[in-house]
């Protein structure tokens, strides 16, 4: 089983990395870019007989540890 967790900065948080990347893209000639947000991507490979139990467990880990709810949002996908 593989879990994919995408972590992004909350909208209210200033994202200087995102702005810097956007600026660089524009300087390279890319047009029409409205915003860039730089986040994190984690892949977790695990053995689990119960997919739903695994999802709940990973969701808890994502909320408690893998992301910081004060400054980040996350999305969890399990395949």
């Amino acid at each position, binding site marked *: 089983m593989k879990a994919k967790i995408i972590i992004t900065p909350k909208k*209210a*948080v*200033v994202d*200087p*990395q995102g702005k*810097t990347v956007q600026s660089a893209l524009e300087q390279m000639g890319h047009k029409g870019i409205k915003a860039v947000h730089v986040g994190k991507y984690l892949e977790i490979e695990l053995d689990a007989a119960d997919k739903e139990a695994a999802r709940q467990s990973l969701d808890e880990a994502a909320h408690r*540890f*893998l992301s*910081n709810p*004060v*400054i980040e949002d996350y999305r969890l996908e399990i395949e």
Partner: protein
Amino acid sequence: MNFAVLQFPASNCDQDCVHAVRVLGHSANLLWHKETSLGNADAVIIPGGFSYGDYLRTGAIARFSPVMQAVQKFADNGGLVLGVCNGFQILCEAGLLPGALIRNRDLQFHCEQVFLKTGNFETPFTNKIPHDKILKIPIAHGEGCYFADEETLAKLKANNQILWQYCDARGNLTDTANPNGSLLNIAGICNERRNVAGLMPHPDRASEEILGSADGRFVFESIFAALKSKIVAQAA
């Protein structure tokens, strides 16, 4: 007074904190992060550094170290805890202080002297700071920008929990004086109960004149005084 200075893998200001306490006349010992007891510590210092390489997020892994459970209990019972730099980050991740520290707004690592204005002189961490004194203390961080949502910031202001703010030499809270983009120029805060505090600047690196400033000693002197008055109160 006896201070426990925590040591995580890649803490690097632990020795500075121990030295600062000792040079000011009290005792300090290093406490490895795997320990589950604080021993006979009267106060806890969480030092600066790059615990766990700042992997995932600064302080994110250190907050789950075994010793942090003892620190949580100690704080719940009113014990004094001071987090410096990475220590501040760890306290925020652990939920012992509100908000979070994120990447400096200019994406640069800042290693320089800053000026701090003290916002509340009635805490265990600020009671010995002269009221007209602007503290000169060094910072050394890449992720020191303090962030909290509007509601939390309002609460911090209303409860006088903002202990230190970045200012210019004359005490003005300007944007230029803010090295990292921290909201409200916040350099350090305390919890509602005032027994846990965190700050990004390093009072441990400003404990003796030879270091360029000895203003950091006021923070330690404040803690010594608070501990002494607690003991006096208990004896009464």
